[in-house]
């Protein structure tokens, strides 16, 4: 029997369930409800420019915060002993495996006006803050949910950096700042890039976080798409067009970023 034939069922499966659906998205995006070819779905999208920019802005902020927390954390962690590293990794992954709806729901009760965070502030004699149903709450939700996706790839790259490379740099007279700038950071770049990808994509396309923590005040691209497919407006043609545009913008961002990150050995992960 031909061994290659073993993959035939899955190749057919991919054609039907991976390739065909994406082609359908493109087809729907360029057709109207009556079935004719049209650009209307795209020209009508201009009214949603605000939602587009808001989505990308919040996703960029959340990704930047994740990077600002995740990079130093991975860096410090890599210096710890093997046991601490292993235990820490399990602790970082554990919340990630809990359903993210529940994690987001938890923040609802913390950030509420009469929630635990404000109670804590009041207890300390500080003025309370209105956080729930604002962009800030949405960003907190994104950071909380996606932080592990930033830590894991960066950590796994830094952990693998050959100690002797760092020692060689020190022997050659580099101080710790220079070692970081010239050796560790460039070597960890692939991890940083895949971390950014893995935080940015779910952040820009979320609709749950904005619904639960934004309270419908903050509409993101995900909400817009969801509304076209399962909401009361039901317009899969417009929904497909928005999905397509989002996909293309994300793809361009990733391509630009990966180009910028090339030069070393290229991205190892993803």
């Amino acid at each position: 029997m031909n061994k290659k034939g073993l993959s035939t069922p899955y190749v057919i499966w991919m054609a039907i369930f991976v390739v065909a659906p994406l082609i359908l998205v493109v087809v729907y995006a360029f057709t109207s409800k009556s079935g004719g070819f049209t650009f209307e779905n795209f020209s009508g999208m201009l009214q949603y420019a605000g939602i587009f920019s808001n989505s990308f802005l919040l996703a960029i902020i959340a990704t930047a915060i994740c990077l600002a927390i995740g990079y130093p954390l991975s860096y410090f962690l890599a210096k710890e002993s093997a046991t601490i590293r292993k235990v820490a990794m399990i602790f970082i992954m554990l919340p990630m495996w809990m359903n993210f709806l529940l994690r987001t729901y938890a923040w609802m009760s913390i950030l509420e006006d009469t929630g635990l965070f404000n109670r804590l502030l009041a207890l300390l004699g500080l003025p309370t803050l209105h956080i729930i149903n604002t962009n800030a709450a949405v960003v907190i939700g994104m950071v909380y949910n996606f932080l592990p996706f930033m830590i894991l790839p960066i950590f796994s790259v830094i952990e693998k950096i050959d100690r002797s490379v760092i020692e060689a740099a020190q022997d050659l007279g580099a101080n710790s700042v220079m070692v970081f700038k010239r050796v560790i950071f460039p070597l960890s770049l692939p991890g940083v890039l895949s971390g950014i990808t893995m935080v940015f994509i779910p952040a820009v396309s979320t609709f749950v976080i904005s619904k639960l923590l934004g309270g419908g005040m903050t509409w993101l691209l995900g909400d817009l798409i969801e509304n076209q497919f399962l909401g009361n407006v039901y317009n899969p043609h417009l929904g497909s067009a928005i999905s397509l545009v989002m996909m293309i913008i994300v793809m361009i961002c990733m391509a630009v970023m990966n180009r910028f990150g090339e030069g070393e050995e290229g991205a190892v992960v993803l």
Partner: protein
Amino acid sequence: MKKNRFGSRLFMTLIGIFLYAPIAVLIIFSFNASKSRSVWAGFTLDWYTQLFQNERILSAITTTFLVSILSALIATVVGTAAAMGFSAMKRRPRGLFLSINNIPLINADIITGVSLMLLFVFFGGALTALGFRFRLGFGTLLMAHITFNVPYVILSVMPKLRQLDPNLMEAALDLGATPWQSFWKVVLPEIWPGVFNGMLIAFTMSIDDFVISYFTAGSGVSTLAMEIYAMTRKRISPEINAVSTLMFLFVLILLIIINVRQIRQERQERNRRQQIKGSEMPVDEIVSNEIISLLGESEGE
């Protein structure tokens, strides 16, 4: 130097608190006697008993486990076969198929969900027109789950196949084994760790998924995640906290099992590597890393 350590440890602890505070809050308030999400009114187990009397939730749990187990099993069989086929291919077609395989992993979940929904609605319409009965439901949910599960299995099995000595199967065949026997007795035991891990990843991905299920399950069936979403949208009930606590315990136990297995495997592999000196491993390590990072990928949303 010591001072430096202190600062970094403090930072790590703070992040730890940030990661676990919400979960602690969920768990603590699952035992709260009042419906409030911030005022403690005494200990109770009422929400747990209510949870197990809530038929919607019970049927959602059944659906979730059924779809997760079925899709993980099917994905494991299909994915292992596909990985074996791919690894026998030339570089070019293999590269092409593996990139298509990666699409569901890289795409935002909402895109995967929406595009599958379009497929089901489009072909469902065609089938209904031909007189067949077709509706969004358990079947479409299962198909969607298999679709996003197989890539994890393939990514987990491929490195094991790469490590496999190609002469091994031929030797078995030369010694008179049928292809099926040589797979079952020679190849499968060698790649089993990858197959099993792939199955576990697929299973947890399925259990955890909300977005793709949401778009492909229709209105008739719902998974636990969908039920939780509906609950957070409607009224506030500490039953959600009770669900969270149970799920957390479930994941914790699952994770312990996986880690114990991994440690045991590593020990075995180290022993083996000491016996056969010079067998290189870096490729495998890079790929297993890839899986670790991909693990997160679709889980978020």
